[in-house]
């Protein structure tokens, strides 16, 4: 599966949290949302999605409850918690710092 770029390591949690800021979603919805918002560039493997969701639940950054979808199917919806929102802020700022740093290095390399 080398045809699409892999997610940057450590960014999956952040992407899930960000997706959930707008509305509670179920697992499939999260995967779909990430895919669409990234114009099909980022694909979340199911193999990483569900363990990641369990991890977030364990940390208390998301809550889960069973609800009905618009098509009247039972599904588990994940909601961002206050702690999750705070965590997202931390991760975003760390990520931006990282990107900025990488950018500086790359710019430097070009000029040299």
């Amino acid at each position, binding site marked *: 599966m080398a045809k699409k770029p892999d997610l940057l390591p450590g960014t999956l949690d952040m992407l899930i949290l960000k997706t959930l800021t707008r509305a509670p979603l*179920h*697992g*499939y919805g999260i*995967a*779909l949302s990430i895919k669409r918002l990234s114009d099909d560039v980022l694909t979340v*493997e*199911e*193999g990483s999605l*569900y*363990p990641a969701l*369990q*991890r977030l*639940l*364990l*940390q*208390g*950054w998301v809550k889960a409850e*069973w609800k009905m979808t618009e098509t009247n*199917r*039972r*599904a*588990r919806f994940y909601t961002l918690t206050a*702690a999750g929102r705070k965590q997202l802020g931390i991760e975003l700022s760390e990520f931006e710092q990282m990107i900025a740093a990488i950018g500086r290095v790359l710019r430097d390399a070009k000029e040299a």
Partner: protein
Amino acid sequence: MNAVSRFVRKVTILLGRRRFGRELDEEMAFHREQAEKEFVAGGMTAEAAKYAAMRQFGNATRLKEKSHELVGFKAETVVQDLKFALRQLRKNPGFAATAILILALGIGASVAIFAFVDAALIKPLPYPNPTRLVDVTESLALFPRGNLSYPDYVDWKRMNTVFSSMEVYTGTGYGLSTPSGTEPVPGERVSAGFFSTLGIAPMLGRDFRTGEDAPGAAPVVILSYGTWQRRFGGRNDVVGQTVNLSGVSHTIIGVLPRGFQFALRDNAEFWEALQPDTGCEKRRSCHDLNGVGRLKDGVSVASALAEMKSIAQQLERQYPDSNRGQGASVVPLSEVIVGDIRPILLVLLGGAGLLLFIACVNVSSLLLVRAESRRREIAVRGALGASRARLSRQFVTEGLALVAAGSMAGLGLAYGGMRVLMGLLSKDMMIGMPFLRGLGLNAHVLEFAGCLALLAAMLFSTTPILHFRFSNMRDGLTEGGRTSAGTLWRRMGANLVVIELATAVVLLTGAGLLGKSLYKLLHLDLGFQTDHLATVDVGLPEAAFSKDAQVVAFGRALLDRAKSLPGVESAAITSLLPVSCNCDTDWVRFVGKPYNGIHNEVNEREVSAGLFTTLHAKLKSGRFFNDGDDATKANVVIINEALARKYFPGEDPIGKRMGDTELTPKSIREIVGVVEDFKDAGLDQEQWPAEYEPFNQSPYTYFHLIVRTVQDERAILPTLTAAIHQLSPQAAVEEGSTMTQRINDSQTAYIHRSAAWLVGGFAALALVLGVVGLYGVIAYSVSQRTREIGVRMALGAPRSSVYQLIFKEAGRLIAVGVVVGLAGSVGAAMLMRKLLFGVQAWDAGTLIGVAVVLAVSALLASYFPARRAASVNPTEALRAE
């Protein structure tokens, strides 16, 4: 989110594990359905969409496992490992049982001995700040730790600046009237601040007050807890009551706490305030007290000793006659209490350590053999994707299971071993070692056992892991992989066995030397005939026997009575039995010889006329006493050969006169006889000069009756006790004993005997373990060489040459083990020289004997694998490939 709530959530999930799995299933099914729908919407057929969705989703089971791993505890896979480990052990019951038993023996022995070491060496003094307590006594050239005299104590206490308090104690005994007659009870006289110095307060009533130990104060007494319970029914109103001790009424002022113990005199039932009223305590030259002091903060034992020495010197100048040569001794109290048994316990702990070492080596080698046979299993598991860490963890789990089983069994053995060892201790020994009362599997001991288990577990789990790190795992898949690793183990195993055999040799030699010492000790020529002698201790109440003449009359009546008993050959009285100690000494000076003020220390015994004939001691020259040598006649004395040799070299001492250091007229005695030396002192003590005075000239109210019988001496003991009570109902009579029993039970004999037995026990275990280890290595080697042996025999090698082959291999190991062991033994024996008696560390007989025993048993152990090798069927051996 903190760790606690994460843990709580994990536990919740663990409890609702089914639901967790179901929800995950449902969630993932939903995901697949949605994906399927999308594929259909994109124009796929329903069938194709279903497969596409499944393909995209991947391995659902693996996915679920990953989620489970995340929320689950590591323990779940550990449980799996553990189940597998237990299955492995069950599948190999021989291996499991051997390994667990060996481990249990090693751990059991070490833990049992450690419990004693812990009780005796780590916490011997159950008082607050025990390290500040010191034993303070006077010292002499001959007695590095002598006794204090009362006037010296008073000066020491007043002049010193190093102790926050300094007190004295001395043993005593009382006649206590009980419904069953007068009973002798042990007691202790202590100065008023004794208990507060130790840091102990009575649990009931009060401590002694200052001044209650002054002459003339009303006599007061504190009860031990046991006495309070046993004799006074544990009643609270006992405080304020009076108790009659040897005819003197004492007021009970308190009861000591239950846990109180004082190692040196632990059997004391009554603790009396010491008033310096005996004749001895009025004289500066009479030493009957022991001192105990509590050091001031910041004062070291050395500086305390220095100050006490200078005080002693000052007193020596002030009182040159009584204090000449009287120095000072200050040593930690714990040193006095456990100094004697420390070397023994350390030797034992060393023995236990060696045993544990052998046990660990054996179990490791068994594990290696097993790891070897599991090479293929491990290789297959590795090939199927088990990570190195997972495989290692399997070994760790197996090691842990083994150690857990071994440790549990070991603790059981340790408990049993402690009971047995305690059983070896006599009642008298326990009085001197009350700290052993708390012996058991306490927290300290369990911690120690835990440490041992941890070390063993670490060793046993790393052994196979290291083994596989050395060898390439892929080799395991091929049959040929066997040879290289086989050689590696054979070389390693061989080295281990050499160490084991050497250790067994060391322990066997130790046991042999100690056994020989014990034999020498018990078969020492004591200078008298020890069999058929019965002895009883008698104490007369001083109130009723205040005049010497009364005591003498009682002694005469008693001897007449005893001699008239059926089966009695002769009877005698002595102030101290033979084979006791170099103690109760006297300073002597000889009339007509130059005297430079030196203290000529000799053992002094007051004996009745018949003592020497009763003991069957031999007269060298002169005469024995007769019953007429009493106060009405001139003072006489009999000396032993040691005294004659030392003070009358080349002279005939008969007719010479001796007396005290000032040659006071009434102390002058004429030497009328010389007896051949017999043992006054303990078995392993040297022979000192001794003087024997007629009991009728210097009677004592406390003495020993000693009777030579025709028949069994034990049978007469109750009759003797009854006879004494008939003569004087107030006389306190202690349970009698026979001379041989006293000698066998004496501290010296006991120490040597228990050391010999214990080291002997260890040696037997070590021998068994070493021989089993050798068997394992040779058997393994034979199994590895089956093909080679088959080829040799197919080519015409006779069976005897196969035997030769195996015995040569075993013989080399045995020879190296024995030689290394013998060298080590001499070294070890030098270290325990203190425990040897009449035997040199390099005793040839013992060394040769041990070498023979070990070589024979080891050759026997290698005979079985050799026979198997020789009975190999060449065709089968070759076909097996």
